[in-house]
């Protein structure tokens, strides 16, 4: 099961929960599972975010594969100057 870590800014929508485990093959599956469990998170997952999958940051992810032991963190989109 992949472990999803919620930043402080998400915890109002998760009822203060800071991490959960999810079974999914890709980020779309992760998002679906999270939205089913925390409906209030829905809007936040529909764009404008990045995730780090096992330390690799991806902006606006959807189809990126997720391994059974993956660690997933939510981040703001990363760009630069």
């Amino acid at each position, binding site marked *: 099961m992949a472990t999803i870590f919620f930043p402080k800014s998400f915890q109002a929508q998760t009822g203060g929960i800071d991490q959960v485990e999810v079974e999914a093959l890709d980020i779309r599956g992760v998002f679906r599972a999270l939205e089913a469990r925390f409906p209030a998170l829905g809007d936040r997952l529909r764009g404008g975010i990045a995730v780090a999958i096992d*330390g690799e*940051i991806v*902006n606006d992810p959807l189809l990126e594969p997720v391994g059974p032991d993956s660690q997933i*963190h939510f981040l703001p*989109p*990363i760009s*630069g100057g």
Partner: protein
Amino acid sequence: MSEPRKFHSVGTRPIRHDGLDKVTGRARFGADLSLPGMLYGKVLRSSHAHAHIRRIDPRPALQLEGVRAVITSADRPEIPSEHGTGGEGGPVDFRDLSRNVLARDKVLYHGHPVAAVAATNPRIAEEALGRIEVDYEILRPVLDVEAAMAPDAPLLHDDLYTRGVDPRPETPSNVAARIVIERGDTEKGFAEADVVIEREYRTETVHQGYIEPHAAVASTAEDGQSVLWCCTQGPFLVRSFCSKVLQLPISQIKVIPSEIGGGFGGKTTVYVEPLAILLSRRAGRPVKLVMDREEVFRATGPTSATSIRVRMGARKDGTIAAVKVRLVYAAGAFPGSPVVPGAMTMLAPYQLENVRIEGYDVVVNKPKTNAYRAPGSSMAAFAAESALDEIAQELALDPLELRLRNAVRTGSQAVYGPTFKAIGFVETLEAARNHPHYRAPLAPNQGRGVACGFWFNAGMQSTAAVNLTEDGSAVVVSGCPDIGGSRVSLALMAAEELGIPVERVRPVVADTETIGYNDVTGGSRVTFATGMAVIEATRDVVRQLCKRAALIWEVPVEQVEWREGEAHCRNGEAKDPLSLREIVRQAVRTGGPISGQASLTARGAGPGFGTHICDTEIDPDTGRVQVVRYTAVQDVGKAVHPSYVEGQLQGGVAQGIGWALNEEFVYDENGVLLNAGFLDYRIPVASDLPMIDTVLVEVPNPSHPHGVRGVGEVPIVPPLAAVANALFRATGVRFYRVPMSPPRVLEGLQSRK
């Protein structure tokens, strides 16, 4: 990467393909284009920093002979708040962008555009600006970021409610957002600390200082198709932003990027571009709009002034026990300062158990900030790395040793959440400690400081094409303007894969209709991400070359191997290798032209870390600080073209030294910028700086086929603190505010007495 790969092109230092044009003046920059029948545009800018616009009457200007068009916000659609992704390291609200391009009912900074004119020559356009009647209701401006947070501060936007606060505030304020990053228990950590310091730091508004002002030429045909030539870091971003601001279909806008005379993040948005398009659509003729230097300073996006408070505690062994930070960043006229990346990066080099970082994004009556090289990080690092230096001093520890004891390593958890894959921070610290500079003797009035820095490095979207020519050369096509040597770097990667000399590869920056979508040149992403696309496209070409060789030889393709620019047959028959040139010569008979293309969202940008050593010398009579020696050490993954990697490090350091010692926007109490020119806004020139030594540490990024990680942003992160720490060791005075300009330093020295 278990075995370091042996390269034949990557890692060499050929002359860049665009070098000759640039040194001979043949290269064409934004303002160099002229078209037949072209009109000249000028922008009327607000003479107040904060005011309601009661009325604009453009009619007197239109009556002037030679004026072909005048536009105000009434000529543009009002667009709703809609967030998209820009080149700024965060979301862009297109309503704000639209109102920044041309004010609607309120001006929010001195220089805010309120109207634009196109006329047959620049003199008439200038005169026409003076005829536009604008009736303002002047409001009190707020310029200081702390003052803007006060409950009685003048409000810039009466519909701005702080995000990130629960429950949502009932009244609007200038605080656009609050963010919190938290781990562990800071109070418990401070209780366990043997030494605790608490300090406040200030940095001022500074500009990227690119030499080339913004410039655009727009031409619109009778069928409504607009073509825009401009200097930008992101032609696709310009196309998309103009489409949003003007509510035009993307298919009606083509953007052709010129050469670019510096950007550093500042050319990742639009200012004059939508105005040029709109004027050309109105006038039915091409329109050229070029900013002058004063306009660049007054009305383009600098980076934030900041107010930062740090409380840091450490145990006797040097372990950082707890850190608590409050970051306040000025966003300028609209929300969107780089406080988020500032918060994420400032302590990223260190393993921390107990940390709380609280950040505020605050609007003030200054131009809307835009990205500037590692947006938000230099100011945050100034605070964090200065505080670390004080901790080292308190504990009588070598400052590099203190950092080594706390440094993140491969597998460490970053303060912003994820676990680092292969990183080379410790290697940079060790290289700095072992560098002769670190032990070199110092002269009187000299001091040595160190500081470290971090940037994520971005991936994002890229497309590249590789086309083989009839003589066996290759053309590499990308859509990423070359701001730091990326053309030659992309060519080197293609040459590496093809096995041909880089001189036979021609890299081209294409327009928005000639190549697929590319995100901006920024975020230290092009050599990494577009490089990945180039490698993928080239490998596709190599597969096709092998297939063609197999057809020529009448053998299965599995028996063909590509080596050193030639196809080799492995079936045991004595066949002479087929060169690329020979295969292309026969292409017409084996399937036609050979080309490859790749589009991707790049994943796995390797984070970058740097460690800098700085020696300063102080003139105790004048307060003037001279940087006398500087060494920048950085993990660069794999230096594709080492000269340009070194150039990135040197350029970042030069900008950082300017930021540390001289640069700042100086405003009067009415919000008028007093130093809108390079005479008074003093960026360092060559004679101000020593030779900046570089050490390239190469810890390959395992997610890139050549081991590349971005390099352009990290080097501007440490210099502010490195200079401040050196100055402390030279004078015994700790400076908590940049720039450390002669009057401020002199004041510090006098307070010592």
